[in-house]
């Protein structure tokens, strides 16, 4: 297993007085897939969002402890969340394409980060991202059509393309398949496999099968605590904590 990309130590997250994430320690490997599972409201999304400081946008939210990316504390006052988020991208539960053309959706990140030197450069980046997101063939003839006009599964792949167009080192995915049918889900899982060859992927999912299929490591959260973290195979075949076992056998949920 390769060295850890992100590590969290003593991470606590509060919304006002609500203690949503409690003292979590976790290491996320590079070039691998880590799954977060657990019952609804246990703090998976909250913890995921603290990995690229998306929680900064919520006024009441407060994060304690340290989270490092390549050994550097991302909550250091010198760190600009803008720089961080360019390296740690995010895909959300509900597809959220911008009200722009398909091309402009994908080109958005590269443009703001000044990644393309020329128009053709930009076109290459966009095409490349759309190809990796396995949606190129479906949209290559209508790059100027609005992104909001695509089907749900296509929209989610567009959002993934948009996220990987900026070449993040880590991609955080919060239930990316919850709005999709089995075929689209399958396509996205393939895509995750493919992405993990180059970058680390963290995925929140409610589907145990999906966690088992795509991830190498799994973290099980319960009521804000990280109950168990380890190799996916171990967690699913031989959980050490009774709460994990109840959850994966369907007794908590």
């Amino acid at each position, binding site marked *: 297993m390769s060295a850890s990309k992100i590590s969290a130590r003593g991470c606590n997250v509060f919304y006002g007085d609500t203690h949503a994430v409690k003292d979590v320690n976790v290491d996320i490997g590079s070039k691998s897939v880590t799954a977060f599972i657990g019952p609804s409201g246990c703090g998976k999304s909250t913890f995921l969002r603290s990995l690229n400081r998306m929680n900064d946008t919520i006024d009441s939210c407060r994060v304690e402890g340290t989270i490092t990316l*390549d050994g*550097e504390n991302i909550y250091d006052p*010198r*760190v*600009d969340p*803008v*720089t*961080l988020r360019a390296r740690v991208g995010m895909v959300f539960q509900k597809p959220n394409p911008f009200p722009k053309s398909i091309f402009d959706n994908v080109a958005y990140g590269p443009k*703001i980060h000044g990644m393309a030197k020329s128009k053709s450069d930009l076109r290459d980046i966009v095409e490349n991202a759309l190809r990796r997101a396995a949606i190129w063939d479906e949209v290559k003839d209508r790059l100027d059509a609005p992104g909001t006009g695509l089907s749900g599964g296509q929209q989610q792949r567009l959002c993934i393309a948009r996220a990987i167009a900026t*070449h993040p080192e880590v991609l955080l995915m919060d239930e990316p398949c919850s709005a999709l049918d089995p075929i689209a889900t399958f396509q996205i899982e393939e895509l995750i496999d493919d992405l993990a060859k180059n970058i680390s992927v963290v995925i929140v999912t409610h589907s145990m099968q999906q966690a088992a299929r795509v991830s190498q490591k799994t973290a099980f959260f319960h009521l804000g605590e990280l109950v168990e973290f380890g190799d996916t195979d171990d967690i699913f075949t031989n959980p050490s904590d009774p709460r994990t076992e109840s959850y994966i056998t369907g007794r908590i949920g």
Partner: protein
Amino acid sequence: MTPRSRSLFAADPQIQSRKRADARFRLYGLAAILASLALLAVLLGTVIGNGLGAFQQSYLTLEVELLESKLDKTGNRDIEEIKKVTTFGYDPLLTAAAERLIETHNIQTDLRAKDIAKLLSKSAVSDLRDFVVADPSQIGSTVSFDFLVNARVDGYLKGRVTRESIADDKMISAEQLDAVDQLVAAGALVKRFNLDFILGSDASDQRPESAGIGTAMLGSLAMMLVVLVLTLPVGVAASIYLEEFAPKNRLTDLIEVNISNLAAVPSIVFGILGLAVFINILHLPMSAPLVGGLVLSLMTLPTIIISSRAAMKSVPPSIRDAALGVGASRMQAVFHHVLPLAAPGILTGTIIGLAQALGETAPLLLIGMVGFIASTAPETMGDALLAPNTALPAQIFEWAKRADPAFYERAWGGIIVLLVFLVAMNAIAILLRRRFERRW
């Protein structure tokens, strides 16, 4: 692929410039807010700075000997006889009183007593006459009387009129101002709170110092009563129908679109409607608060319907279902259960609608509530509705039109009165909302 192993801490020039752009953008937003608030402050500052003066007025105290030989030649205190003496008959009394004033206070001036008497308002003689007519037994005695001084002198005491500004003024001279200075020093000429501005009636354009806004307030009050009586029941009935009973069809759609559009029709158009329908066709009297109230009702109705519907919409359906469940008819459910719960919201909307109507001016211009001197207060309810009158904003406009700084002061003062009413009404609305705010 660009290799990106640079540190999170590294200051990237591209990021720096983007952050600067971000800060700039934020600054524009802040500047816009501050500019709006500054404009609000300037506006209110202007109103208060210019208008507070209207609540003070300067008075000159004179000892007036009410000579029987001038006022009641027959000496039998017959009121009809006394009334025959016009204001001209009182002029000599004032001149004599001015004479005495110069002596008692030892005023150093080359002016004749007549010119000192000219410091008084043109209303001074009629005020004196009213006093005598009201109490003829005073004839023969000497009474101490506080007279309004004219607007120039008053303006001089308030700083509005200066020695420079009167250089070409025929109404007042530098010598007169010298005398004014001495009278002020002697305590005979004082500036004090002026209740008459708040309670009084308008005065002719020669006498800004005695113009008051009380009658206009009565006019506004009468109009607001008309608006309340007409719009509240109609507005609530219309909202009940639209919110609770209306089937979804072309007609109700049309009504909805109509209501939202009526709310945005320019107010002057309602004035044209009022003129054409209420005055030209129905022959209601010009300048009558009733007509003003009718026009404002039509304008206010959409506002009240919109807010009443919102209030009724916020009553949860479970309440209706519960009422229907225990066997109430739909009418009963609405009148016994929904309406009481929506009442605070409806009331709040009504007060806000009335506040809007109170400040509306344009339609009143067309139905003749501007352009005359509303110098007498109505005495009966019928008069209050049908006799020609003006209204708060119309009176303010009328004063503004007279193009005289003394009347401008009164216009600003009138605005203070208007704003006090509006603030009070809105405060009541906010309190109501707070008091009855419910979370379902």
